[in-house]
């Protein structure tokens, strides 16, 4: 069930350049299940900035009733968010949308992430590993400064890093790494910029894949029709990223 809650801020840490790891606690966490779901966060008490910001769930800790987000402080809203401390509360609406189907993973899965698309893959990796699925992580970042969670992913499986400027790992995009990896996986899961999702989709036409999309949002719950994408399922309909997605099987979204 979707809830709105003023959640307690447990911690907020800058884990890479302009990348913040924010953990909050509250009963809303009990509603979270699927990796790949997101929350809609209000960054200010006033109406300026007005809209909530969608942020993926990066880690769920049901015991502590807390969850973790990882986001890049970039525009007005996220930079306000990054100024919040343990003394503040955070107005969170969630969990929202449909996440990654973990039961489709088979025995071995590729998790392919780019930049701020990496966070939801972490909870996904945790849940897949808990089910005995072997996960390989292929993660792309701008530069070494922007890399985060490398060790955490490594603890869960093979982890390959690409940076655009080559300052860490392979130089280039995740697709460069994918070219050199075997085709021996059962399913892939991906989140990142749309061109990356496109490239990944093209690389594995015969594989089962699940992609998480981004769109500008209004309501975040399916009411305002802001976040639509065309779909191959029907010529006469759109899908909504917020409530039909953000995760869709490969081949469904026309971007």
């Amino acid at each position: 069930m979707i809830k709105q809650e003023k959640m307690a801020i447990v911690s907020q840490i800058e884990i890479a350049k302009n990348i913040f790891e924010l953990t909050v606690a509250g009963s809303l966490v009990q509603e979270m299940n699927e990796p790949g779901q997101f929350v809609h966060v209000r960054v200010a008490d006033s109406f300026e900035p007005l809209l909530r910001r969608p942020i993926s769930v990066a880690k769920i800790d049901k015991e502590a009733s807390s969850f973790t987000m990882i986001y890049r402080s970039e525009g007005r809203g996220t930079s306000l968010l990054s100024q919040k401390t343990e003394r503040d509360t955070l107005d969170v609406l969630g969990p929202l949308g449909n996440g990654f189907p973990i039961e489709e993973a088979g025995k071995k899965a590729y998790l392919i992430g780019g930049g701020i698309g990496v966070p939801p893959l972490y909870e996904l990796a945790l849940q897949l590993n808990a089910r005995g699925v072997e996960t390989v992580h292929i993660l792309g970042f701008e530069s070494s400064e922007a890399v985060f969670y490398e060790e955490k992913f490594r603890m869960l499986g093979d982890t390959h890093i690409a940076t655009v400027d080559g300052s860490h790992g392979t130089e280039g995009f995740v697709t460069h790494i994918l070219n050199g990896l075997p085709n021996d996986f059962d399913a892939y899961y991906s989140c990142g910029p749309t061109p990356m999702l496109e490239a990944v989709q093209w690389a594995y036409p015969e594989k089962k894949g699940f992609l998480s999309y981004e769109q500008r949002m209004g309501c975040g719950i399916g009411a305002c029709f802001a976040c639509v994408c065309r779909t191959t399922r029907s010529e006469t309909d759109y899908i909504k990223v917020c409530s039909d997605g953000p995760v869709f099987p490969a081949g469904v979204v026309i971007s």
Partner: protein
Amino acid sequence: MTDLSVQLPGLDLKNPIMPASGCFGFGKEYAQLYDLSKLGSIMIKATTAEMRLGNPTPRVAETSSGMLNAIGLQNPGLVKVVDEQLPWLEQFDVPIIANVAGSLAEDYVEVARTISKAPNVHALELNISCPNVKQGGITFGTDPNVAKELTRMVKDVSDVPVYVKLSPNVTDVVQLAKAVEEGGADGITMINTLLGMRLDPKTGRPVIANITGGLSGPAIKPVALRMVYEVRRHTDLPIIGMGGIAEVDDVIDFLSAGANAVAVGTANFVNPFVCPELIDKLPERLHELGYESVQELTGRSHRL
């Protein structure tokens, strides 16, 4: 006991608070969050004769204390709305106001004729003011004669009272209000969005794919309030006021300026519980201000 009820043509409202069209879909999503029977009414998303896909994305952009949208009347079309959405809404004890849109006058007439027969549709809201559709819409809402004629045509076929939604993008909103009154409108809803634009400073490109969009939210409240106040000075038609309402004192302001009820749009995105919260807060605020009913307060700015 503070009396929140409001009687308007076709609408026997428990309270004067309702979500504005386009900001609440057909209610399904918000029904996950609270009981829709709590609402005074629901203004459902614009319905057109045929299904519409609307505009390309991005469709929304944030601005200072506001947002732009160019959804472009995406909706499943008259048949689906009448066959699926409206029957689903019947489980709630809430009168529906159906927002009617189109490109040609005949489209409006067709939608109005059919949708006004749905049992839970108690009034129509004639959307002659959507700034986000190329053909039509906008001209209906800016030319008094066209607006009057369209109102008359829709009145002729509608089984329920017809409210006309006015555009703020006009030189003289009072003239438009009077025109639709002459056309037989039973009420007025106002305001729709202000036409605006945002650019991406990095590229110079419009952020909204449709180039321009409709500005809503707290930023436009002063314009909306002024227009409601002006229109109230020139007509006795019921007014459902909207534009930037987010807090209980915003409701008070619109009622004071002469609105008989209010609609809440953008604020639903910020706080999905805003409508029931406003409904809960209104009695106490009215009482604090020394009023026992919504009706008593309504229009007080004109009686000072």
